[in-house]
């Protein structure tokens, strides 16, 4: 069913492509939002990834690889969005950053603030690996294929990202409850 949709879209069927957008759009948006931590830039990244996918679909020889290919386009679009934001943040310094407005309240506001700040210290490449593995549930070898780096690099990025996020929480806990935490 899905492969058939990809084949039809590859042949220029924009209705089939719209169905693929309906099937995958939410997942892609969820990934882009979590990498970029910004709804507007995530929407731009998803739009760019899908339009690039549409444009170059005829070159995709194996429809079974559509998911990996789309994820790769999405991650690259996120990198570009992150780079663009960096340019603007340097030269213009006016772009607002989405706060917790699009998230629910199952995490304490203080924790979320700590994690958001820690996460934004990571490079987009570290964020992408963390989100693809821990949120999208891709195994390490699949993440490596999507981001185009060896599995060992994926592991080291995951390790660094996790360490920085854990450190943010633990440092806060030490500050508030020093007697309850191991040294």
């Amino acid at each position, binding site marked *: 069913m899905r492969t058939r949709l990809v084949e039809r879209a590859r042949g*220029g069927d*924009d209705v089939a*492509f*719209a169905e693929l*957008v*309906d099937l995958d*759009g*939410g*997942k892609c*948006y*969820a990934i882009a*939002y*979590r990498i970029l931590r910004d709804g*507007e*830039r995530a*929407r*731009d990244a*998803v*739009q760019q990834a*899908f*339009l690039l996918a*549409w*444009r*170059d*679909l*005829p*070159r995709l020889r194996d429809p079974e690889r559509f998911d990996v290919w789309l994820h790769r386009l999405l991650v*690259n679009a996120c*990198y*570009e969005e992150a*780079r663009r934001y*960096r*340019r*603007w943040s*340097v*030269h*213009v310094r*006016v772009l607002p950053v989405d706060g917790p407005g*699009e*998230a*629910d309240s*199952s*995490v*304490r506001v203080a924790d*979320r603030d700590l*994690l958001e700040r820690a996460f934004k210290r990571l*490079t*987009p*490449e570290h964020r992408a690996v*963390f989100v693809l593995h*821990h*949120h999208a549930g891709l195994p390490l070898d699949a993440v490596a294929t999507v981001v185009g780096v060896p599995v060992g690099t994926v592991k080291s*990025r995951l390790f660094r990202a*996790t360490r920085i996020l*854990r450190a943010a*929480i*633990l440092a806060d*806990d030490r500050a508030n409850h020093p007697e*309850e*935490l191991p040294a």
Partner: protein
Amino acid sequence: MNTVRDPDAIIFAWLDDGPTDLPPETRNAIVIGARVVRQRRPMWLSRRNPRMSQPFRLATMAAALAVVVAVAFIAFRPALSPGPPQTSPSANPTSGPSSSPAPSRSSLPPAAEWVPFTSPFYGYTIRHPAGWDIIPATQHYGLPESPNLFPQLDKLDSPDYSLTVAGMRLRDGETSEAWLRAYFGDTIESGDACTPARSEWDAGTIDGQPAFLVRTCAPAVDTFVFAGDRVYIFTAWAGLVDDRPLFETFLSTIRLQPASAVDPTPTP
């Protein structure tokens, strides 16, 4: 009583927070965009018209054969004259190893036959093969009110190669070095996962002005050129990324005209 908290549980709860549905306006923008954006079809995948009659099909095949023969003749004929510009006389970056030629490079006409494009905003002229899709920028690069980068780029596009260009005026007193450091941030010397360390950049000149070529993870090759009080960013995409000689041929056709650039009117 306080308890020791599990940081991983907090991290994963935080990661699961957030939207999971694509906003309808974005979905619609994609679907409408797909009706407008033309698909790039490789040479090996041609569309067939099932209702094409046999005589018409034969005539089409004969025409296609004639085109192939003509293209082959043009591509493989001996060079009649050196004809400027053939290969990068003014672009002189230190070339790294390049991979095999891009798919249909042999179908490109000689650079001497390329036609000029003059940017409406950014103050430069570049030459390109006739028949390419040329989409000039409609917005100035770096305008904060536009979240979409595409309208801010001059785009030179063909099925196999793509080139985009942006430019901006340096701030008063800003040096090229200061601009590069602001652009790349703290990792300019060390590089990051997407950008090589500065020591790995290629340096050269374009139209006599200092230039740097930086291959990024996009994958793309960003070329930064400084002239007068302006910086230009010429970016190679698609087949140009791995075909450095061809990209340099494009760069060799560039004529920088910073005095003719049009900058956005400052908002009060």
